[in-house]
């Protein structure tokens, strides 16, 4: 590896690890996220110029912080943001005390996460904001994952950041009374990045659009900052369980393989064990929650790697609890699938029939499970109708192919 390549990698690494910390620190006083990001990208460009020439600085993060802070002060001055003057002074005074500041600066990422998922911000923008401000993902990549054009995503991000700056949204960790609801929004946003609704027995998981690793990273950051929150452990456990099966989800030819037919040898034991540790820690707190229940369902599935069988009545029981907390279409469809495995296809179908009053016309997993159960009951015509709906709503070509073959 050449020297400059090495430096590039080092910059990438520092950028990934420090990006959120630096943006959070720079923007927490001014609420000016956009300027903080601009300042940091100036600093990264400067690093790309000087580091290959002069070698890596002893403390790359501190170097970036110093450069970003200077650029930030220039930017804010240039934009003549009147109300920012006070916080600019704070940053300037810290600059003078550089010797004492040294490497340490407060980690404001938790505040930044809560700002990104603030109720005053459009819920659809919570996840994109986190991905950009905490991880530094560019608008084009985020746009691809959320199926909008890069230009549209860019505009929406700018609008959201303007609202953070001018809308009086405070950089703070919510008080105890507000915390559960506000934390929920943060967890939801991270889970949305993960992109997999649920892992059902008919094998129609929604395709993750490549952000699974980023979501796990975000959950790890959050856990570092809130190590005692049961649901944070629960969310991380859930995602790790799903991620453990990534390699088993597709055949060598790219064919879709449903959970029930996956080769458990291909599951990642390391991920499963880590997930189990987090789930155990969550359960110890005694405060049950949605993500812990979803993780518990995945934990029962993971057990098949050891025992060779799946305890469907345990899964059905967890779903029953889950429906009480979160009666979504996804939960109820998952519950129907579990009940069908535990008590027979007719029982599962009865649960699906009970949901049908709601708008299921665009919900692909509902039709996939329905088709599967009707087929098991020998109702050929109805089954192939339902398969058609599931196929028509599928986005992943491999899932489509799988369902086409099952329909026969």
């Amino acid at each position, binding site marked *: 590896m050449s020297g400059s390549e090495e430096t590039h990698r080092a910059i990438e690494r520092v950028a990934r690890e420090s990006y959120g910390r630096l943006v959070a620190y720079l923007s927490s006083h001014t609420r000016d996220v956009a300027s903080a990001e601009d300042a940091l990208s100036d600093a990264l460009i400067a690093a790309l110029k000087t580091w290959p020439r002069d070698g890596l600085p002893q403390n790359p993060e501190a170097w970036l912080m110093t450069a970003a802070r200077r650029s930030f002060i220039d930017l804010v001055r240039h934009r003549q943001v009147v109300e920012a003057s006070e916080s600019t002074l704070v940053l300037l005074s810290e600059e003078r005390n550089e010797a004492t500041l040294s490497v340490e600066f407060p980690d404001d990422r938790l505040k930044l996460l809560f700002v990104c998922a603030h109720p005053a911000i459009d819920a659809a923008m919570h996840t994109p904001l986190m991905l950009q401000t905490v991880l530094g993902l560019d608008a084009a990549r985020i746009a691809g994952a959320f*199926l909008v054009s890069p230009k549209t995503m860019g505009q929406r991000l700018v609008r959201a950041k303007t609202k953070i700056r001018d809308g009086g949204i405070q950089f703070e960790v919510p008080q105890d009374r507000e915390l559960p609801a506000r934390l929920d929004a943060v967890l939801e946003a991270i889970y949305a990045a993960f992109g997999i609704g649920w892992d059902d027995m008919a094998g129609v998981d929604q395709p993750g659009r490549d952000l699974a690793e980023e979501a796990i990273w975000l959950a790890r950051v959050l856990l570092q900052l809130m190590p005692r929150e049961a649901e944070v452990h629960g969310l991380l456990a859930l995602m790790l369980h799903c991620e453990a099966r990534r390699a088993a989800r597709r055949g060598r030819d790219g064919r879709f393989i449903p959970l029930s037919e996956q080769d458990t040898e291909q599951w990642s034991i390391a991920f499963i064990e880590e997930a189990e540790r987090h789930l155990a820690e969550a359960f110890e707190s005694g405060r049950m929650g949605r993500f812990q229940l979803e993780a518990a369902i995945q934990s029962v599935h993971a057990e098949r790697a050891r025992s060779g069988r799946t305890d469907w009545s345990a899964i059905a029981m967890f779903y029953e609890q889950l429906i009480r907390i979160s009666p979504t279409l996804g939960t109820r469809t998952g519950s129907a699938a579990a009940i069908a495995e535990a008590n027979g296809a007719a029982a599962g179908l009865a649960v699906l029939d009970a949901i049908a009053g709601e708008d299921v*016309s*665009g919900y692909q997993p509902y039709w996939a499970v329905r088709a599967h159960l009707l087929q098991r009951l020998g109702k050929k015509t109805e089954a192939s109708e339902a398969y*058609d709906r599931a196929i*028509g*709503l599928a986005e992943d*070509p491999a899932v489509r*192919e799988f369902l*086409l073959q099952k*329909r026969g």
Partner: protein
Amino acid sequence: MQFALLVYESPEAFAARKSDGTDAYTGAWRAYHKALVESGAYVGGDPLEVPETGTIVRIKEGKRRVQDGPFADTKEQLGGFIIMELPSVDAALDWAARCPTAASGCVEVRPLAPAAKHRIT
């Protein structure tokens, strides 16, 4: 609001039209069409004949200029269109992503322009 889904197919996708209809691509399209109609978003649409059957007419210096298709060297050619009634472009993009041709060719979403139509009707 109405959107057009412009479906650009690869030569292989056009070739699938000659099959007996039991191939996966045709099956996926049948299911997709059904899901679109059942959802209530479908307004209309049609496949187009293969690009080679197209003819372009221009009037240059008062004379007719006629050219046979296909007219571009690009691999994917317009193969059909669908008109949908949906609340937002996001919903239209969801349907575009589900379109079987999105995996082999490409699909363009464009809002219809009722104002432009109004000027000529």
